[in-house]
């Protein structure tokens, strides 16, 4: 035993005079800047996707309705409620939040005798820390719990594609599709926005898990034209995708196409289990083989109805074939979808225009019910001076003639009036034809709407420009200058606004700003109208029309003439996916109507 060992411990006494280190008031101690304390939620930004609830391993989060927050496209109207009896403060809910609305404050002391107050909806139930800047936020940068960037789609180079009508989008490979599908957080916010309410998260999951058959079956539950929709759908779903709030939305459309592309035509019936459907002996006539007609035919055929489609042209598909250029939607893909529907026993009588070759009244007599999906085919004119010149065309007519293989007039300098997808379609088609004929492109598309509100899909505008077409939006046409019976060009004036304060179409112009587009051919693409001449007067009398002349139908697309169902572009849209949804719904309606009648 050393003396030092006995004396040395007494040095502890020097601490008697040390300043105490105890925190005197623990309640006022502030948490660190990153501290994970009570939740905050910016309820305006939050869309109620429930991803926070999914990741919470403690089941501490419930998605609950909140008064004053409306359920609408892209917002479930639900907000997370946290139960602090279960929360473990891991903040994974914050890190995974799709909108970055959720965060944690650095407040951590809260004493109450009532246990129930520790369950509240952050951002809705006001708390002291709602405006606290400090606390846990999602770490920055390069810290993501799922990929925010979209897997790029491989496309033909502008130089490769601007001379031909070969399909420009190549489609995802297996690896790319699975990588893209992996980004989905499976919130399901998109389902409500899709007109057909497709089971989007489910089919994306099938892609991820390489279960193509399952995904294919999912597609056909709500959409019998997946090859077509997978290419040209307006993909409203992608505009509300929760992942899109802080990154790129999922490529829902391309994933749908990926599934459909993987399945060979001969396997369709096998996978979908549609061999040997029992005929129920009832007959349905369908007018028009566009998306709504085909969709109705498909679902009616599955229910056992004998379906016959009357088609005015010599091929089926309607606007999908005659309106959309081949480089966006190749004809063999249209045929792939349609041939399957035909294989279910659906018949098509081509070159038969109802109202001319056969009357609607005859159909009523011969069939148990009729579905009309005749679409919008009549081009609308600007009716500006000079618009009656022979070298002023409607876009829909030209597009149809291109499909039919007819030689159309292609001038060296062309102006297209219109800013929608049809305008872009004709612009890009004419650019290709100019390239073939003259080896150069000189086509200008001009629209009333300024660039930010142009109705065409963004990528259509970008791709038009890549193909050397000029898009010059924000001009209202005033007249077409004609000299010696030859078109010289188009006069336009600046359009300052398109819609009035109530959101109605009411364009305003600035007459001092004008421009002249030189051209020797002009194409009008400002919308289409319906042609319902085939509905005779006595039938029309049974139907109802709104003040603007549109047919009024019920939830099942049944018109006032009970045996006549109407859907597609003449009711809703115009786009393919609404047509599909209408056709499906009408098929259910027809079945219901006939069952009730019997």
């Amino acid at each position: 035993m050393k003396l030092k060992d006995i004396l040395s411990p007494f040095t502890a006494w020097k601490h008697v005079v040390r300043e105490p280190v105890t925190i005197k008031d623990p309640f006022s101690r502030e948490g660190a800047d990153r501290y994970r304390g009570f939740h905050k939620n910016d309820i305006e930004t939050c869309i109620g996707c429930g991803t926070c609830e999914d990741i919470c391993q403690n089941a501490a989060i419930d998605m609950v309705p909140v008064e004053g927050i409306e359920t609408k496209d892209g917002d479930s109207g639900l907000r997370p409620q946290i139960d602090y009896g279960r929360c473990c403060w891991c903040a994974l809910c914050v890190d995974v939040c799709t909108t970055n609305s959720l965060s944690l404050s650095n407040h951590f002391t809260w004493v109450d005798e009532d246990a129930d107050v520790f369950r509240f909806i952050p951002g809705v139930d006001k708390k002291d820390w709602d405006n606290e800047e400090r606390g846990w936020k999602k770490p920055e940068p390069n810290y993501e719990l799922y990929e925010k960037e979209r897997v790029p789609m491989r496309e033909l180079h502008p130089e490769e594609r601007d001379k031909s009508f070969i399909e420009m989008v190549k489609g995802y490979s297996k690896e790319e599709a699975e990588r893209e599908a992996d980004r989905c957080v499976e919130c399901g916010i998109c389902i409500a926005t899709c007109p057909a309410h497709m089971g989007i998260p489910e089919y994306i999951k099938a892609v991820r898990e390489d279960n193509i058959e399952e995904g294919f079956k999912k597609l056909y539950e709500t959409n019998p034209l997946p090859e077509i929709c997978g290419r040209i759908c307006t993909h409203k779903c992608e505009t509300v995708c929760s992942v899109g709030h802080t990154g790129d939305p999922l490529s829902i459309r391309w994933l749908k196409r990926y599934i459909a592309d993987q399945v060979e035509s001969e396997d369709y019936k096998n996978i979908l289990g549609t061999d040997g459907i029992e005929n129920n002996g009832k007959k349905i006539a369908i007018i028009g083989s566009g998306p709504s007609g085909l969709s109705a035919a498909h679902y009616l055929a599955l229910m056992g109805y004998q379906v016959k489609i009357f088609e005015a042209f010599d091929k089926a598909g309607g606007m999908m074939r005659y309106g959309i250029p081949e480089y966006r939607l190749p004809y063999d893909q249209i045929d792939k979808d349609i041939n399957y529907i035909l294989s279910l026993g659906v018949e098509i009588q081509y070159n038969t225009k109802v109202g001319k070759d056969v009357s609607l009244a005859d159909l009523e007599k011969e069939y148990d019910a009729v579905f009309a999906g005749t679409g919008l085919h009549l081009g609308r004119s600007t009716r500006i001076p000079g618009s009656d010149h022979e070298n002023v065309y409607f876009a829909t007519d030209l597009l149809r003639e291109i499909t039919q293989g007819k030689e159309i007039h292609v001038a060296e300098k062309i102006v297209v009036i219109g800013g929608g997808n049809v305008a872009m379609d004709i612009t890009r088609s004419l650019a290709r034809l100019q390239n073939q004929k003259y080896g150069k492109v000189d086509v200008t598309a001009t629209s009333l709407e300024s660039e930010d509100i142009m109705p065409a899909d963004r990528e259509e505008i970008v791709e038009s420009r890549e193909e050397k077409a000029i898009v010059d939006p924000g001009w209202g046409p005033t007249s077409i200058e004609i000299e010696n019976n030859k078109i010289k060009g188009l006069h336009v004036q600046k359009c300052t606004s398109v819609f009035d304060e109530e959101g109605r179409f009411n364009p305003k112009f600035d007459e001092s700003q004008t421009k002249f587009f030189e051209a020797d051919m002009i194409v009008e693409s400002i919308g289409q109208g319906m042609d319902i001449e085939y509905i005779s007067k006595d039938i029309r009398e049974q139907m109802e029309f709104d003040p603007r002349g549109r047919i009024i139908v019920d939830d099942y697309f049944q018109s006032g003439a009970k045996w006549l169902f109407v859907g597609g572009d003449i009711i809703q849209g115009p786009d393919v996916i609404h047509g599909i949804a209408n056709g499906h719904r009408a098929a259910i309606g027809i079945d219901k109507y006939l069952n009730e009648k019997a």
Partner: protein
Amino acid sequence: MNKKRFTINEDRSLFPEKNAEGKIDIDLSSHKYLKLWQGPQHPGITGNMSLELTVLGDEVMDCETHVGYLHRGFEKLMERRKYIQCFPIVCRVAVPEPDFNEYCFASAMEELAGIEVPEMAQWLRTLVLEMSRLQSYLMWIGGQSGAFGSGIIGQWSIYLRDLVLDRFEELTGGRVYHMYQLPGGVRGLLPDGFKQRMEETLLTIEKFMDDIDKVMFNNAVFKKRSVGMGYIDPSWVNKFGITGPNARAAGIPLDVRKDYPYLKYPELDFDVVVGKDSDIYTRADIRRKDLLLSVDLIRQIFAKMPEKGDIKAKTPNVLHWKVPKGETYSRAECTRGEYGYYMVSDGTEYPRRINVRGPSYTHAVALLEKMIINTNIADVAGLMVSLHTYPPEIER
């Protein structure tokens, strides 16, 4: 070898003789023995476990370790959670050393999934592991001296530990459970001024360690009770699966940081601390030196780590991350020895089986039960703490 081995009561006439197997036949009906429960209410600073002691006089004749007081079934819970959902719970396996759990879990998963963690994240992981070692030793040192009746060290060391926890709070957002080492990386860079505040903390710790050296290690009472006491024979190391300071005190230089270099340890300059006497005092001294080594390593890390860099590798979407089929074992050196996660994946979104290997599993059961025989009951707590055992990792 020891200058002075701890001796038991020399007069063995009162004690029963050992049988042919070298064990004592205990006849409780003889009324010579007493059953004494050490625990389960924190019998030292070890957490909830209990020792069922059979004593004769004040000498322990037999001992059985009982656990099960804080069994939460983590291994089973993880089988029912997605990988990302296991991340917040693994740290809760061991209260004083959450980071080793986080690291082993993340690295096992990263190995199976083939994910390379960015350089910066590796440095930050090394940093939090050393910070965790520091605070765990500080907690232990109070327990060790407390078990021998000196409460003052515990007051100081818990204060020091709180300073480290303050730094953890700044860096990770949590004091005790840090939830920082996410599979794929970490959850944040160093906050502004962190290095300086950490340096201040380290200086305070060093200052107090001088005092602790004087008051605990140069203390006649502590020496009297610990030198020669609780001897672990080097030949037991493999036989009992002893790792960490308990093995190093016996002269076996086992240190995962050196033997199976991981993270940034290969770039750090340090020697494994080894002792030779293998008694309670030596083990305490090894841990003291290891604690100071951690202080040094933290400084080295600060000097060598880059200022900026990616904190997380790209991983699949955590909401449906499927880890490829396979199995692996990932280990790290915690304050008590080899900590490891054995992970089996069946290729789904959920782990098939995760087994947590904590060093206390061997130290607190087989080894303690053997060592404690013939110990005076007054020394049981000190002996137990000197093995630095934590029941949570025995029963998980």
